[in-house]
């Protein structure tokens, strides 16, 4: 049976435990809101168990680098150390040891472990467009900041969904145009004041 109960996303009242009743549920019994629940086999299956290591039985048998008593089953694809079933971590078809995985995650080399990326293109375009609407007099300064920021962040890791480099490239002429227009506006304003 499921270890974690399903609750109504609106009122947080627990829904029936029985998978058949849950799948057939149309409305939340507590708040009456329309719900639709899709259950998968993992809901009724038990917790997933990992592979258990085997002990080294014969002398001369390859042992795990981290657990001398465990039989090695695979070498690490990164550092080549022998690993037992406990230390073998499979990631996108590659076998790595926990140390390589941790160091790879820290250096951002393992794409599957990345949880965020900076988007300098969004910052640049916000700097270019928002002052035009909100604070007209500041836009030469923000255009200059956007231009410098674009050049500094040019080699940032690109976004997974948008073309960061193209957006940054388009921002350069817009920033130059805004800068030139802003400077001309300020000069005109100063001349008018005098």
């Amino acid at each position, binding site marked *: 049976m499921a270890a974690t109960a399903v609750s109504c996303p609106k009122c947080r009242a627990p829904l029936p435990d029985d998978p058949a009743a849950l799948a057939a549920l149309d409305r939340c019994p507590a708040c009456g809101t329309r719900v639709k629940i899709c259950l998968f*086999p993992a809901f009724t299956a038990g917790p997933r168990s990992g592979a258990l290591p085997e002990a080294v039985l014969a002398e001369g048998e390859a042992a795990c680098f981290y657990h001398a008593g465990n039989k090695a089953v695979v070498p690490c694809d990164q550092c080549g150390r022998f690993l037992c079933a406990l230390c073998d971590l499979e990631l996108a078809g590659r076998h790595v040891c926990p140390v390589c995985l941790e160091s790879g995650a820290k250096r951002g080399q393992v794409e599957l472990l990345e949880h965020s990326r900076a988007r300098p293109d969004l910052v640049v375009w916000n700097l270019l467009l928002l002052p035009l609407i909100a604070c007209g007099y500041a836009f030469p300064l923000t255009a200059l900041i956007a231009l410098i920021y674009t050049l500094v962040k040019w080699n940032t890791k690109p976004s997974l969904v948008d073309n960061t480099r193209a957006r940054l490239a388009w921002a350069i002429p817009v920033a130059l145009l805004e800068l030139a227009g802003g400077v001309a506006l300020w000069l005109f304003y100063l001349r008018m004041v005098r």
Partner: protein
Amino acid sequence: MLRRDPNYTRLPGGGRTLTGNASYWLARDHLLLVDVQTACERYRRFDLRDIRCLTLVATRLGWIDRGILGGASLLFLAWLLGALTFGKLSFPLANGDWIGLIALAGAALSSLTGLLLSIRAGRMCRVEIQTGVQTIPLPGLNRWRKAEQFLVTLTSAVQAAQADLRPVTEAVATPAFTADPEPESPADPEPSS
């Protein structure tokens, strides 16, 4: 980029969120959520074998949306009709203010278009995903119809990934392997006479 990556397929659904937008990408063994926010994008990966259930719940946010757009449409249309019929009563438009009339007609048309698009998109909803260790809302899946399309596509992938999982009770009833039958105990030696 994921669009050019043959390992990923974009799922229907996803769209604007409060601070940006969200999109969903299906890989061979996981679902990737890309949540683009103000200055960064965040990723969440769900192993298809870990997904236990998806819950859709209808919300009433759509009615607020439609109420505001409908009210604005009515207001602008009434104002426009008033301006066309009784020129002097339609403050602040003066007689012969064609630019004002065009702006008013544009505002009425855009709010009406927004209302029709909102009605066409259907009712609003919220979607939650439950895995073995967490239950989290899925951003950007705000419309019931789109969310159902998302569910249909994802369900087939998850069912395929979990094809070998069986309920706990069934797994206990049917052991994974059969042990060798116990050797029969040797027959009692016949008592010697």
